[in-house]
């Protein structure tokens, strides 16, 4: 895992690039437009700092490029020439990941159908089935929160979640820092 401080710097650099491009192209943005632009630049910068090594970062960038011309333009600005290569990479890995997911689901179903040799007391069986249902439900929620989560099997989902949470924290720390600095400057 990369040390957080270099991740922060990389995120900051890419985010500032995105922000500068945004503000140079549109002089008089409304507050809402600017908020969206700031958030979009931050998300794309955070994802590109991973250099398409994780599924969530690829999915995030793909989604950003889909949302009309603003997103696509921004992605191109921040990623530069890499953006085209990344788009093509996402298209090819999408099918691969889908197949993996279907296969792992089949494997799981098959393994569940295999009768277990150890004896199960009825109450214990009920409790474990309820627990399994809860885990499944919560896993679905998690999949909806992670970009591109619907295509992952359980193991990848947890790995991606770990990386996603670390990146989100970096994003929040850097944004908070900039907000604090801006407030100080504003008060003087």
């Amino acid at each position, binding site marked *: 895992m990369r040390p957080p401080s270099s991740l922060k710097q990389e995120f900051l650099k890419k985010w500032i690039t995105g922000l500068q491009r945004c*503000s140079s192209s549109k002089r008089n943005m409304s*507050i809402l437009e*600017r*908020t969206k632009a700031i958030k979009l630049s931050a998300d794309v910068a955070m994802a590109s700092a991973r250099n398409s090594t994780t599924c969530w970062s690829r999915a995030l960038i793909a989604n950003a490029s889909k949302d009309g011309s603003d997103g696509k333009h921004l992605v191109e600005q921040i990623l530069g020439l890499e953006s085209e290569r990344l788009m093509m990479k996402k298209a090819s890995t999408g099918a691969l990941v889908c197949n993996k997911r279907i296969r792992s689901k089949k494997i799981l179903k098959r*393994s569940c159908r295999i009768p277990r040799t150890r004896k199960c007391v009825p109450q214990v069986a009920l409790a474990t089935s309820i627990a399994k249902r809860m885990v499944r439900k919560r896993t679905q929620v*998690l999949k909806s929160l992670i970009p591109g989560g619907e295509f992952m099997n359980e*193991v990848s989902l947890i*790995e991606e979640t770990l990386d996603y949470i670390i990146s*989100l924290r970096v994003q929040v720390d850097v944004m908070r820092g900039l*907000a604090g600095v801006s407030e100080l400057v504003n008060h003087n």
Partner: protein
Amino acid sequence: MSSRRSSGQSTAGVSRISDEQIIELVSKLRQLLPEIRDRRSDKVSASKVLQETCNYIRSLHREVDDLSERLSQLLATIDADSAEAAIIRSLIM
């Protein structure tokens, strides 16, 4: 990363995703979550970990949204005054 490599092999070859792998990943996840980390580390169920994870991610998302809004209002007022914008720029670069 070795963990990534081994998980790839397990889904391709063996018929069952190993429990140890999942336990290891879940324990790593627990260490990231602020609430669970402070509690007793032993008896935390998988569903509780997942729930805390989802809550944590949602709260981080909300914070990003709030910060974006705050920054947007701050930067809007700074744009007009070029001296302050220069200060910010010099601090960032």
